[in-house]
């Protein structure tokens, strides 16, 4: 499988423990910078409400898992797996990396 990497912003554009939305091809992706400067990318669409808002949620942890809470109705999504911890739902997870200070999101 070939991964196509799309640059979306500089690493320093990101706030720790907050997200931004990025357009990657046709996909809306929510990009998060964690407390330890690790990066995660999941689909931006909140499957419960249908609105593209997950990038605007509060980032934190549940147990040891990094999560974002949907700003619409507060369901938590595991940023590693895309699994919703409070409802029967799941969002896609995207590969993400930093190259030369630039954040890149991967799509297949």
């Amino acid at each position, binding site marked *: 499988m070939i991964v196509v990497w799309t*640059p*979306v*912003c500089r690493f320093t*554009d990101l*706030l*720790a*423990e*907050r997200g*931004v*939305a*990025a*357009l990657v091809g046709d996909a*809306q992706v929510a*990009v998060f910078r*964690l*407390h330890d400067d690790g990066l995660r990318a999941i689909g931006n*669409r909140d499957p419960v*409400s*249908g*609105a*593209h*808002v997950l990038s*605007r*949620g*509060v*980032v*934190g*942890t*549940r*147990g040891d898992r*990094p*999560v974002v*809470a949907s*700003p*619409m109705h*507060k369901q*938590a999504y595991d940023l590693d797996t895309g699994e919703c911890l409070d409802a029967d739902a799941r969002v896609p997870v995207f590969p993400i990396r930093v190259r030369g200070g630039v954040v890149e999101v991967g799509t297949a």
Partner: protein
Amino acid sequence: MRLVVVGNGMVGQRLIEALAARDTEGRWSVTVLAEEHRRAYDRVRLSAYFEGATAEELTLAPAGVPSGTDIRLGEPALSVDRAARVVRTAAGAYPYDALVLATGSFPFVPPVPGRDARGCFVYRTLDDLEALRSYASGRSSGIVVGGGLLGLEAANALRLLGLRTSVVEFAPHLMPMQLDAAGGAMLRRRISELGIAVHTGTAVTALATDGERLRVDTAGDLALDTDLVVFAAGVRPRDDLARAAGLAVAERGGILVDDALRTSDPAVYAVGECAAVEGRCYGLVAPGYAMADVVVDRLLGGTACFGGADTSTKLKLLGVDVASFGQTAGALDVVYADPANGLYAKLALTDDAGTLLGGILVGDATAYGTLRAAVGGPVPGKLADFLSAGAPDVALPGHAQVCSCNNVTKDAVLAAIGDGCGDVPAVKACTRAGTTCGSCVPLLKSLLAEAGVAQSTALCEHFAYSRQELFDLVRVRGIRTFSALVSGYGRGRGCDICKPTVASILASLGNGHVLDGEQAALQDTNDHFLANIQRDGTYSVVPRIPGGEITPERLIVIGEVARDFGLYTKITGGQRIDLLGARVEQLPDIWRRLVAAGFESGHAYGKALRTVKSCVGSTWCRYGVQDSVGLAVALELRYRGLRAPHKIKSAVSGCARECAEARSKDFGIIATEQGWNLYVGGNGGFRPRHADLFLSDVDTDTLVRTVDRFLMYYIRTADRLQRTAAWIESLDGGLDHLRAVIVDDSLGLCADLDEAMARHVASHTDEWRDVLEDPVKLRRFVSFVNAPSTPDPSISFGSERGQPVPLGMPS
């Protein structure tokens, strides 16, 4: 079908409320014919009227009339034509399919000569109390005939009116229906300490007028001289209407009903004090409520029966706790008496001491809830523990009745807890337990704790502290960031509960702009974008319009902005204007226009002061007595931007007509001829609640100082997302505690609270203007980090009534 209810006392009111709640299909349309000119009020607490409670505060119908109910006040039923099924009043005729008689009772006045003399009163209605009050003015002494429940209530009323008070009771001791001789003696001792003279075993034989004074003669040669006499020697059922209609009545009075509360005419029911259930009348409210519930069930096709009622009583008479429950004498009575502390307790047991039959408590009734619920079973715990002050820790059986007013068992409470009721208000709402006399609330708390429901005050998995504890930690230790707080006092990296809470605490303590530095990451989306998120991911914009007052020029600017950005426009309930459908990247452009026209953030997105509504007040209104708009504007500007545990709403009305609906607000102000009345703890929403009177007739400075302290104390001590009403309810001592702290400064906090508010007022800046002037903050208002001005392609609008509305939410 048509239901006519005759009487709007406590039981009649309970009936129409219960019917409104259960008759979800609207099968019954209800007409209530009430003799009094007021809606149902709390007759149990009548003497509170002389402690400053208003008639309005005693009302049992704060929320108004249930829909489908027509209440006709001051229109007593005159006759019932059972053949035609019509009730007649002076004003008209009311046909019925079912009729409920809830006519209550009338005061019993012993047939002694002179009982109609000037200066003689009864004690039953608010009108009786008003007559009593106006007569008592300028006089110095009063005698109550009757030393039972009602008589001692009346004695309290006379005492509160400043009269030297005596009580004359025919029986050998006080409260003969509830207490034994020793309990009555202890009560007498406590009451005498208050300066009330008690004459028991004394029959009144005659009253004689002596100029302005009255002389009360008794069988024991005692003659008492007094200004006035109140007869409170019991009540008799009002069955005259039923008698005239040919319904069967009991031998000793009362409308005869079966256990379904049906009279001798199956279309006619009787409930409350006027009903003689299988011959027996009940003079307490709890059995009346149980009867009302049975009739409602029957009206809706059910088969409920009245199975007799618990006549247990617990009350505070003249500041003394008195309780009696079950049988007050058994084969084996265990007694504890402590005259030094004015305590008396007696438990009635079966001869093997194995079963509790009932008991009496005087001076300390803490154990009442536990003991009453245990009647019929073994004494729950060590006998001796109950016979001194306080309530020991014990387990109750499941069938034990926790709330006797509403007949709720321990099992029912546990079931509600199991269904997710996590605190006392939730249990109350779900089961009705604790909603009448409130004496079982401590028991509800301990059941919640026993059930292991997180009465833990931990905020979330990241902090073992309550919001109040976190507030104090942050304030006292001078912590300025979430990271410092969570690494020092918590675990993990926080969540959508603790982060916005800490953000709010930091903001309340004045840590600069809510989007400064690390604080930005703590805010939930509304505070992060300073706008309210909507279902499609767009936001709404609400500029501040203090007091609801706006110039035509500014109104035009709002219209132009809405038009130019294609925003749906709606007037809010808080007298401002909501502009909906703004995309994230449009927000700065919208606010640039609004700020240029002099608008600032309305904080509709924040847990903060929202609006201070007002009516036009004395400036324009021919009824207004104060400048309500001026005060509302001043208050809104004073408290704007103040972050709190929950949103805060307020209103100012310029006269008692209350057009601004101030009593539905967290703090509401109503103008009086002399100044302002302050009400606190109101809200609309899921559980509407009227605010309680807190201060009367104060000047503007006193008012503002008190509101300053009220808000700051709330901010410091309330739980997360706890509105002021629930907060006041949760304070140990409620409104009295609040008054002690912020009016009498009992905790020595006031200077600190005043200073905190002064800092808030001095440091205010407009959040939106600050953002527009800060390129770093502005950079966050983009749709996509790599396509900052490309609109979210999933957002689209249709049109409804000429305005844009969200369309095509992808499923």
